[in-house]
């Protein structure tokens, strides 16, 4: 690991002053950043540890629009185990518990989880070309071993996937990200926080370097009874997703009043399945309808050889997640 300076400011203002400068990275839980620094994938000159900032806590706002606010420094394990989250947003709890290991969930924060980098092996291997690690150096995965890689929203520069489970659930739940900078506060819809690779795969998201994630706000919903997070992976636990599906249904009298669907392991960002959601609205929650929704969701999918299996695994996973959410199986 290259040498770096370390500071732990006590105020948000000091953090915002520090992160505006080049070569500076924010340190929260460190479970991904320290890993990347050890491997030389990233070599910041200075780490700004934000653990002293008051960005903890989970609270309910019972105003006109009922919401739950989750602080950016709240630990993944604490969010997953929190009473409000377990009871009202079980999808988020399930997704968090599907991610990483208990030890890592005790370290990883909500904001850090959103900022984690892809686990594409070519990104991690500094001897290989990678447009994400080093712009215009090429892509090792495109014609390399791309079993874990994207089937949606790829570009000719990058086919990496976003590795988070938590983010798939938050994208499905229409969460909003609150970020602060010296200019003030900005709110980013969760589905617009992460971006597709396009010509700039080095950028994972739309957060400016001078901005700090302060909390995530989730609107109340009617999905608690019929939610399911399905994660398909190479071993039973503690592995990144080949495919994951966040399914949330609002069912009344056998009819789907509203639906939310998002996939992980298939794109550079959590992949919302809006066409499938629209299709399911107003229809009974039957296996046949779930099959059709899954087919709609697969439009535009493109595979790269080793990940051809995802074209079959993805729709099957969507059907399974919807069936579990609806209580059919």
């Amino acid at each position: 690991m290259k040498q770096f300076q370390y500071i732990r400011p006590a105020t948000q203002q000091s953090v915002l002053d520090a992160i505006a400068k080049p070569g500076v990275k924010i340190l929260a839980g460190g479970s991904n950043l320290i890993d990347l620094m050890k491997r030389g994938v990233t070599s910041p000159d200075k780490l700004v540890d934000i653990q002293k900032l008051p960005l903890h806590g989970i609270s309910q706002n019972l105003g006109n629009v009922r919401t739950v606010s989750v602080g950016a420094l709240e630990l993944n394990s604490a969010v997953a185990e929190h009473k409000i989250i377990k009871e009202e947003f079980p999808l988020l709890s399930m997704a968090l518990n599907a991610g990483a290991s208990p030890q890592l969930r005790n370290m990883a924060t909500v904001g850090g989880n959103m900022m984690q980098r892809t686990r594409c092996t070519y990104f991690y291997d500094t001897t290989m070309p990678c447009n994400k690690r080093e712009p215009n150096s090429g892509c090792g995965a495109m014609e390399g071993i791309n079993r874990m890689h994207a089937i949606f929203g790829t570009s000719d520069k990058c086919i990496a996937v976003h590795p988070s489970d938590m983010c798939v659930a938050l994208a499905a739940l229409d969460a909003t990200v609150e970020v602060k900078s010296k200019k003030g506060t900005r709110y980013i819809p969760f589905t617009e926080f992460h971006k597709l690779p396009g010509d700039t795969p080095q950028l994972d998201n739309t957060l400016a370097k001078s901005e700090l994630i302060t909390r995530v706000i989730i609107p109340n919903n009617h999905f608690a009874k019929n939610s399911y997070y399905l994660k398909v992976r190479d071993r039973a636990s503690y592995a990144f997703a080949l495919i994951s599906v966040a399914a949330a249904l609002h069912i009344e009298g056998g009819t789907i009043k509203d639906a939310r669907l998002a996939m992980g392991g298939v794109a550079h960002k959590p992949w919302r399945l809006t066409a499938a959601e629209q299709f399911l609205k107003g229809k009974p929650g039957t296996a046949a309808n779930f099959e059709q929704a899954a087919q709609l969701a697969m439009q535009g999918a493109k595979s790269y050889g080793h990940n051809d299996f995802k074209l079959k695994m993805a729709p099957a996973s969507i059907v399974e997640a919807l069936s579990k959410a609806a209580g059919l199986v």
Partner: protein
Amino acid sequence: MEDLNNGLGADNQHEPKENPRRDFLKKSSLLTAVALTPGVAVKAAESHLDEKVAAAFEKMPVNITVNGAAHKLSIEPRVTLLDLLREQLHLTGTKKGCDYGQCGACTVHVNGQRVNSCLTLAITVDGKKVTTIEGLAKGEELHPMQEAFIKHDGFQCGYCTPGQIMSAVACIREGHAGSEAEIREYMSGNICRCGAYPNIVNAIQEVKNGGQQV
């Protein structure tokens, strides 16, 4: 309060005297480190990095309580908690497996929560309480989980065992040892290459069902 950062003289009192191999390794790696440092610094200075090197070499004060003993230390920011424990405090029970947060051999408790010490910068543990495998037993009396691992053959080579035991204790404390399936899920961050998993699960279930204080 004891300061363990005084060099080799002070270190020896924390080591069993009859371990010349480990002692030699320790001394030789320290000498290697000392021998290498000037070269690195010179090279950095040549490439006009001298300011950065000066700043980074600056050690920072840290107060950490490990297994009940308070330590006032001075460390470089990039030292991980794992390396601090093993190299400076000579608590070599905590193992370095993958060093990238994938195997769990380095699991310790920080303020009662299990974490991967290999991905934790020691500087971030300032003011916190760390418990390692050495802190579980009460003198000669083993912790119930240690007893159970021995009774159930919860290990073969033993390298992952300290991490497994730290995780197993946390697993019960967190309330995630309710069934075999739950234990397996909540122990998934600890890899055992010998494949002692069934015996590890049995050990945890016995401690859980025995209702002993963990």
